[in-house]
Structure formats: C-alpha cells, structure tokens
C-alpha cells in the first residue's frame, strides 16, 4: 500500500532524476548518442527484416492449390457452382476461381507461344475444368496445405490436386530462417544495447557515489536512490530512440532514390516501405524500456545497509 509519504518520496526521487539528467548534459548527451547509435543499427536491421517479411508475405499470398475436376465444359453452370460451393466450404480456403477447359487451353496456348501450333491437331480439348484455391493466411505452411489438399482431393468431382509442394517447402524454410535470424540478431542487439545502458548508469552511479552514500545515511531507501537513475535511464532511452528513428527516417528518404534499382531487385519489384505508426511507436517505446532495464540491472546490487 502506497501512503501519502511514499508518494511524496517517489515524486521527490523523480524530481531528482529529472534534475540529474539536466545537471550533467554532456554525460546525458553521450549516453543518448551511444544508445541512439545502437538503436539505429537495430532499427535499420528491423526495417530490412520488415521489408523481407513483406516480400515473403506477398509470395505466400500468391500460393494456389489447383483442384482438377471431372468437368469438361459442356455441363452448364449448375455443376460448376455446386462443386465451387463444396470447395469453398473446406476449412482453410480463403477464395477460389474456376478455370474452365477453354480458359485452360487458352492459357496453355499463351504459355507455349510460338509452339502453340502443336495444339492445332487436337480434335477435342483434353484439359479438364479446374479450381484455383487461395489458402487462408493461417494455412500457408506445408502441413496445413497438405491437410487442405487431402480434404479437397476427397471432395466428389475432384480428380487431382496440385500445390507445388517443393516451392511451398522452400518458402516455409525461408520464412523460418528469416524469423530465427531476426530473433537471434535482434536479441543480440538488445543485449548489447542493454549492456551499454547498464554501463552508462554504472558510471553515473560511480560519479554520484558520495551523494548516494549521504542520501542513505539520512534515511533514503533503496528505491529513493534507484528511482532517479531509472528515470534518467528511461529519459536517455526515449531521447535515443527518437533520435535513432529520425536519423533512420532521414537515411531512408535519402538512400531510397540512390538504391532504388538494387532494392527493387532485392524486394522482387516491390517498393521498400518505412515503418508504420505502430512499428515507429514500438521502436520509440523500446528506448525507455531499454534505459529502464539497463538502470535496474546496474542498480540491483545496491546495499540497503550501506
């Protein structure tokens, strides 16, 4: 239970933290610059990951299962609609599109190009009608697609299902690797940043050791001593995150025209995008959290009796 005296103590400690930040502008600026450099690297890395994930997400959205049917094109619309309804009812199907035997033959002609003449000798269209099924967002991994393919194959009227299993496996592996590398490098950068903040706070603690000792002698509790450093760490983190975000935005705007072709190739023709409001806010929030975390780590051993 926090009483009025504790509240006032907390307020006094926070005022001391704000005052401390203002009293050592050079130390504060150095800490901010160091953290901002780290956050800039982290932010740039996250930006690359976000864009690569976008590429992978778009590739995933283009995934299709093709269900070949017994439909030959002469049955009229009713059997097509009935089969379409059965397929649409399958769990994991986001949308579907019917490709009639005629459409399939036209596509084949287009794909063959100059060799399309080879089809002229056919006395009838050998291609069946088919459905192209777009899997739902949560059903794009190989296991889910395999399950969906099995369910679709079991629908009466479907003769075969193809879904480019090797490609999907490769896609899933690429996503997994990107996520693991992302998590590993991200964690590494966070630890490095946390260490930088903790070292900065430890230096600050060392510089103010006499002041802390005197505070303790006149009755300051551990949290009265810790809070100013926590606030200072959080303020440094916030300033560093804002600075890193601004620099990153500037570099993105300046670098985009220079790297346009290379980026377009890397991103499969898609334009590079900067963080949205939510991602920017998350990066901004990361700064104070890191500052606070680093301060807490370096203050954990503060002795109550000293």
């Amino acid at each position: 239970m926090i009483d009025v005296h504790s509240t006032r103590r907390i307020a006094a400690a926070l005022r001391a933290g704000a005052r401390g930040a203002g009293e050592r502008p050079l130390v504060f600026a150095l800490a901010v610059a160091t953290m901002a450099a780290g956050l800039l690297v982290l932010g740039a890395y996250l930006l690359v990951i976000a864009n690569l994930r976008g590429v992978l997400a778009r590739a995933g959205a283009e995934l299709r299962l093709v269900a070949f049917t017994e439909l030959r094109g002469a049955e009229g619309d009713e059997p097509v609609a009935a089969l379409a309804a059965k397929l649409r009812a399958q769990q994991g199907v986001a949308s579907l599109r019917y490709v009639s035997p005629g459409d399939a033959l036209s596509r084949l002609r287009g794909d063959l190009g100059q060799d399309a003449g080879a089809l002229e000798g056919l006395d009838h269209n050998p291609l069946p009608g088919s459905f192209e099924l777009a899997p739902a967002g949560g059903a794009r991994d190989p296991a889910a697609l395999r399950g969906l393919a099995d369910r679709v194959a079991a629908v009466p009227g479907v003769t075969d299902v193809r879904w480019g299993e090797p490609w999907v496996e490769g896609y899933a592996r690429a996503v997994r690797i990107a996520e693991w590398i992302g998590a590993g490098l991200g964690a590494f950068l966070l630890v490095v940043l946390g260490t930088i903040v903790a070292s900065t706070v430890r230096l600050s603690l060392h510089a103010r050791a006499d002041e802390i000792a005197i505070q303790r002698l006149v009755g300051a509790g551990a949290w009265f001593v810790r809070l100013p450093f926590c606030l200072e760490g959080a303020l440094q983190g916030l300033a560093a995150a804002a600075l890193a975000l601004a620099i990153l935005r500037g570099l993105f705007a300046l670098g985009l025209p220079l790297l346009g072709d290379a980026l377009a190739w890397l991103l499969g023709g898609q334009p590079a995008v900067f963080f949205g409001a939510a991602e920017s806010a998350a990066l901004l929030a990361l700064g104070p959290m890191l500052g606070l975390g680093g301060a807490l780590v370096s203050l954990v051993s503060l002795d109550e009796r000293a």
Partner: protein
Amino acid sequence: MIQMYHVDLRYAGGTYGLRDVSLVLEKGDFVFLTGSSGAGKTSLLRLLFGAESPSAGQILVAGRNITRLPASQIPQLRRQIGVIFQDFKLLPERTVFENVAIALEIAGVSRSEIRTRVWSMLKRLGLAHRIDHKPRMLSGGEQQRVATARALVTDPALLLADEPTGNLDPALALDIMDIIADAHARGTTVVVATHDPALLERYRHRRVVLDGGRLVSAKSPEEYALPARHAGERRA
C-alpha cells in the same frame, strides 16, 4: 530510547571496534560519549543508526531491536534519527536549502511544508542569507550548522553527533552545542561523541567513557562534580 546489551563489534581480521558494551539511555537523556581517538565512539554511533551490525549482543533503539531489523527497514530507522557527522557530509552540488530539504524529502514531507520548515530552521541557525549557496562557498562553521540543520529539521527523536565541533574554533563550537542543547530542551534524546574537555566542562551531562572499545565508565554529572573516591562507577 537506547538499550545495548553486551555488544561486540568485530571487524574483518579479528580486531574489535567495541567489546562487551552495555548501555541504557532513557528518552530525553543527553549523553557525552568520550574517550581518546580510536576508543570506539564513532563505531558505537554507527551501530546506533544501522551503518554497522554488531558481531554479538543486542541493540534496541526506540523500542526496535535493530540487530534483528531486516536491511530494508534500516532507512525507516534512520528517518527517526538525526545524525551530525564530523566531516559534515553535505552534498557539494546542492544548495544549502537542498542539503537541508533532502532529509524532509526522504521523510515524505510535502513541498510546501519543506519550504516552511527548512526556512525556519535555517533562520534559527543564522543561515537564512546562505540559503541558495553551495557548501563550498561556506565557512567550516557554516557547513557544520547546515549539517546540524539537516539533522534537526525532521525533529528527530534521537540525535547522534559525531565530534560535531571537531573542526570548529571554540566560539563556533559553542554555537553548535547551544543548538544541540536547544534540541535537547525540546525533548530530543542526544548522544554527542567528543573528546573536547572544554565542552564536557561547560555542558554538564552524563558521560560515557570508552577506552579501546570497552565502556569504562558511565557517570552522571553529579558524580563528576564529586571527588573520584566518592563517585562510584556504574554500568548503565
């Protein structure tokens, strides 16, 4: 107010700061802790405000057994005690006002009350004109008065003073002692560590004499007024 029973303070390496010290101080007492340098005066004071833990024995301060007090409760104990240090222990980058106010901030007093009480205390100690100055701009006597103001501004139940006049000339020493005596007159229990015979002569209060970490005598002022052969030593 203070009860010490067979207290030892042994440092790493086996040397003793205090040995088998037993002492009782009632609420409102004024006691001089005397003895030569290294006798154990500072060690005893440090035990009383929880800066050291005894190696043996029990210490009760204001009814609380501080030998069993968890470390997290030590700050609460210290908020009830005013301590004047021989080396002042002022915050060099803070003003006189801030140095005195810190004791009240730590006690959780409101900002408006802090302003009133600090101003009033500094005025009483003749430091009102120094309120915005930093310690390095003050004389030794003024710094000691600031330290005294910080110790007294919370109206502590117990005041511990470690050689509060050690760095001062005789006139300033009497100033500081008068301030401490004034606090005692208003009900504060006072323990002053000193080896200044002039102070002991002028302020005739009970004396606790330490020698080599042992309590060798604890006499009332009346006993000191008598020839030694009539004054029986007693363990408090």
